């Protein structure tokens, strides 16, 4: 099911189908300190063009902090992030999004008072070109682009079978649907790399199974890379090609699901050390 991880010129491992393409994301020696606390240190990660990668680790390991560094919610204090070969140093959250990273949030952050469709359209905002005057005076540019946006929004919503909810208020959706809408909104920005922060949190097993299928479907249709944080090991081991394990802000293991499962350091980080006899 997985393509095998192979090593590329930089020494990092990516799935073999991505081996001849430049990676979408490269983190080199990434780190951030808050006061004296080193929240993330010496974080190195390479993600292939169409790879589904997982970031796992015990609570408080710094996984979400990595996402916040990638999306520049925090500016890294050390290291480099290369997105599609471009250094993102000094970029703001909005600029990073335009450069091609979209994300979802651990605690859902939707535009609760807007409709489902408008939530998706906000994601398309940067792809739209008409200016404020066209909007106010309803010039042809407005009608043309809004029509395209509507069709595209419906198409994206149909990935998760949410077209029927298009006119509902986002805040009124059930929990699972809100999580899915966040993913659709992120996709609407046309990213090259999708960051999912615990997408299966609070979902039941059948919903999780469906989500897994959809993440794969998204990767296949849009040909993008996905990096996800998840505590559901079933999901992680099933869909991730490469997995990176974080503990106390440092990478303790990297590799394919099989390698991670049999890694003694990872088992120790999750379950604790075996008592010496």
């Amino acid at each position, binding site marked *: 099911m997985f393509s095998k991880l192979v090593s590329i010129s930089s020494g990092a491992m990516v799935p073999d189908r991505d081996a001849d393409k430049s990676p979408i994301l490269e983190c080199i020696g990434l780190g951030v300190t808050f006061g004296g606390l080193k929240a993330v240190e010496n974080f190195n990660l390479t993600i292939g063009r169409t790879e589904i990668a997982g970031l796992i680790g015990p609570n408080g390991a710094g996984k979400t902090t990595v996402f916040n560094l990638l*999306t520049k*919610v925090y500016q890294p204090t050390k290291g480099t992030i290369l997105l599609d070969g471009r250094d993102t140093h000094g970029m703001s959250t*909005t600029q990073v999004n335009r450069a091609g990273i979209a994300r979802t949030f651990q605690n859902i*952050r939707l535009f609760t008072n807007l409709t489902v469709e408008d939530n998706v359209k*906000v994601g398309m905002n940067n792809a739209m070109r*008409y200016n404020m005057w066209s909007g*106010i005076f309803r010039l042809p540019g407005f009608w043309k682009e809004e029509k395209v946006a509507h069709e595209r929004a419906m198409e994206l919503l149909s990935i998760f079978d949410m077209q029927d909810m298009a006119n509902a208020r986002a805040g009124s959706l059930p929990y699972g649907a809100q999580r899915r809408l966040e993913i659709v909104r992120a996709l609407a920005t046309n990213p090259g790399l999708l960051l999912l922060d615990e997408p299966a949190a609070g979902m039941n097993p059948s919903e999780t199974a469906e989500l897994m299928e959809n993440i794969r479907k998204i990767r296949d249709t849009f040909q993008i890379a996905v990096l996800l944080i998840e505590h559901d090991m079933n999901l992680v081991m099933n869909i991730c090609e490469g997995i990176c394990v974080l503990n106390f802000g440092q990478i303790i293991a990297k590799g394919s699901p099989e390698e991670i499962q049999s890694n003694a350091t990872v088992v120790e980080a999750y379950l604790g050390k075996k008592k010496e006899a």
Partner: protein
Amino acid sequence: MEKLKRMAPSTRSSFITYGMVIVAYAVMEALLSGGLLKSSLKGLLVPICAYVVMAVSLNLTVGIMGELSLGHAGFMSVGAFTAVIAAAALESTVTSGPVRLAVSMAIGGVAAGLVSLIVVVPVLRLQGDYLAIVTLAFGEIIKNIINCVYVGLDGEGFHFGMKDAASLGLAADGKMLLQGPMGAVGIQKLSSFTAGFLLILLTLAVALNFIHSRAGRAVMALRDNRIAAESVGISPSRYKMMAFVTSAVLAGLAGGLYAMNFSSILAKKFDFNTSILILVFVVLGGMGNIRGSVIAAAALTVLPELLRDFSDYRMLVYAIVLILVMLFTNNPACKTVFARFKLGSPAKKEAV
């Protein structure tokens, strides 16, 4: 009817708002021509229009952008006095009254917009209570500046001064336009109910079309969740500035309309109390609910006039009515009733 059902809910809601205003105008015009309107109410028609525009424009800042502004009367003031001066200057060049009104109101709107470009700097950096205090201070500053400006006009052009009328050195045929604490004097009454009605329609078109365009969506997204909005590439400063300046320009237009309904007007008229009054319209009509703002502004401007029978207790009754209405409209049970008729229920309904 079929077509009405097929429309997007937001479009239908907008059309209901326009329809409501047009019907109200037709009814009032009919009453006017029938001579059925009390003169005290007749005098209120233009101020009602001005307050409706103010309420709608403040709703852009408070309801749509989600930032509390306590200095909205300041923009009205800038628009009012600029329009009055412009109208006087254009007296000889533009002879048609309605055209001169439109042009000077537009100049007032632009002036308010320019001033808002200064105020927008703190608006982009501050949030919540801090921003409210800054806008409050801005309103006071505008009031006090206008309070000590003297403007005169004669054959040579404009004369400005901050000291007194005599120091302007006005020619004998010149006339004073702005006399510091005495306010603007000798204003030509150019405003009419029809002009006010047209301004309301323009304001509604601008506000509703803004809200239902990509800029409006971006502003509301920033209001609902700033971090998420930034994560999908919405730049906060750009869109907040759009909303704030649009709101200020509309307030400036309303100021022009309002001022040219009187023969003289004081800077004191546009003080903190006026800002709060407009905020009350917005809160009562529902944050982000444009139609609500229109209804609330009209109703609350007429109310004191209708309460004239209570003479000395007028404002007391007004306050009690206000409290009761606020309690009533915020009662969950009443809200569901409102929601059924799609009348009241705030942001949710109108903001979509």
